[in-house]
């Protein structure tokens, strides 16, 4: 998949992963890279940007496997952003599908 296209939707994917449960950075990397092929290094700058934009907050939680982990929690603003993004994504997806199918039929 085109890298720029993936980056465009990555905000939404990250926020969707923490919509119902808080997760730590590497956990997000693993979950997303399971479905979308993407370089691991792209997630962390994105998380920093989401935090700067106050769409997520962070807190430390003790871990059984070593140092405390930084967990990410979605904020109200983040949830609103995610809702808008879902709607927009649905519209884009439907529009693109319709155009692609229309093109296929004409051929």
């Amino acid at each position, binding site marked *: 998949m085109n890298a720029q296209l993936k980056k465009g939707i990555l905000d939404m994917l990250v926020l969707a992963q923490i919509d119902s449960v808080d997760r730590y*950075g590497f956990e997000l990397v693993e979950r997303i890279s399971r479905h979308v092929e993407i370089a691991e290094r792209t997630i962390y700058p994105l998380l920093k940007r989401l935090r700067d934009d106050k769409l997520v907050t962070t807190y430390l939680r003790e871990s059984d496997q070593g140092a405390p982990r930084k967990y990410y929690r979605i904020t109200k603003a983040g949830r609103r952003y995610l809702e808008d993004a879902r709607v927009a994504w649905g519209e884009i997806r439907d529009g693109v599908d319709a155009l692609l199918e229309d093109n296929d039929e004409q051929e």
Partner: protein
Amino acid sequence: MNRSEYLDRIERELRFLNAEERRDVREDLAELYDGLLERGLDDDGVQGRIGSVREVVNEYRISEQLDRTERSPSAASGARLGWMTLTGRLARGFGVQLFGLVWFGLAILMLGVFLTIVAAVVVAVMTAFGYEPFVATFAVSDASVTTGVLVSVSIASLALSALLALRLLMRVIAAQVRRRLRSDRHTIPRQDAHQPGRFSVWLNRWAAVLHVFAGAFALAIVAAATYPVLPSGEFPVVVERTVTLDSSAISRIVVDATRNRVSLVSNADSSTREVTANLRAEMELTFAQLFALEGRVAEGSATIRSLYQEGLSWGINPFPELVVVIPVDVVVPIHIQARESHIDVSGLSPDHQRLVTIE
């Protein structure tokens, strides 16, 4: 390159971030590094997955640039706001406007303070060189009046800020209405396409009217707050001829202009009798009236206002040095202690000249 060296180099290269952010990034990457190590990769493998130092740094640099672009005002109306609702946009617009407004108000306030300080310095220098400007009475001799000037400047700043807030509010509303109408333009008949413009003109016209009113209001506040007040203090009464004064003669007149009150102090038992007089509004109160209130009649033609104005016309500030001499026989001569030795009283009538003595 081992884990530590790799993370150190990245942290060092992230010069566009502050120290705390760099530490955060290091922690994040350490977590990622350790996570990949747990998958069984070695250092080379992990660094291959994460990317070279330059790639990682570039990733953060691009992210920062993107962040800055999205935060810029031009982008506010662009793609990012596309995700937001109309209310969200309004709130954001207000946030920006109010922020600017606060700065503007503070700037005006600071300017007012600066001008007041400059005025005080000018007055002090003029006074030091023997000139006593009119404002010296307010800026130097009475600290409370200086405070009053500061307060009035602050009030004026607030009034101006309120005015600008009103104007900006109207602009924001007009902009939102225009935007909404523009977005609905396909549903509006072509001849109505100019409607937003007319609406905007209407809003601007009323904004200008309100602007004038608010400006007048601000000026009125400043005028009221800086209206010259008479200085307070005690003005000793020097008795020139004691023959007719009895034990209940008045020893002092205490003028408290800030409380609009005149006190006559008895010479005998130092008891004080207060006579309320609105010195600001009724400065025509004559000394004769003043003494009549006390139950004794004395002649005198000078009013407090005329005393003050005459003093100014002689180039002195009479009140701080004013000594009123009360002979109880015929007239109320005026005795003025002046710093200047060149006071010209030739412009006064012979009667006034006879009444005035200068030390």
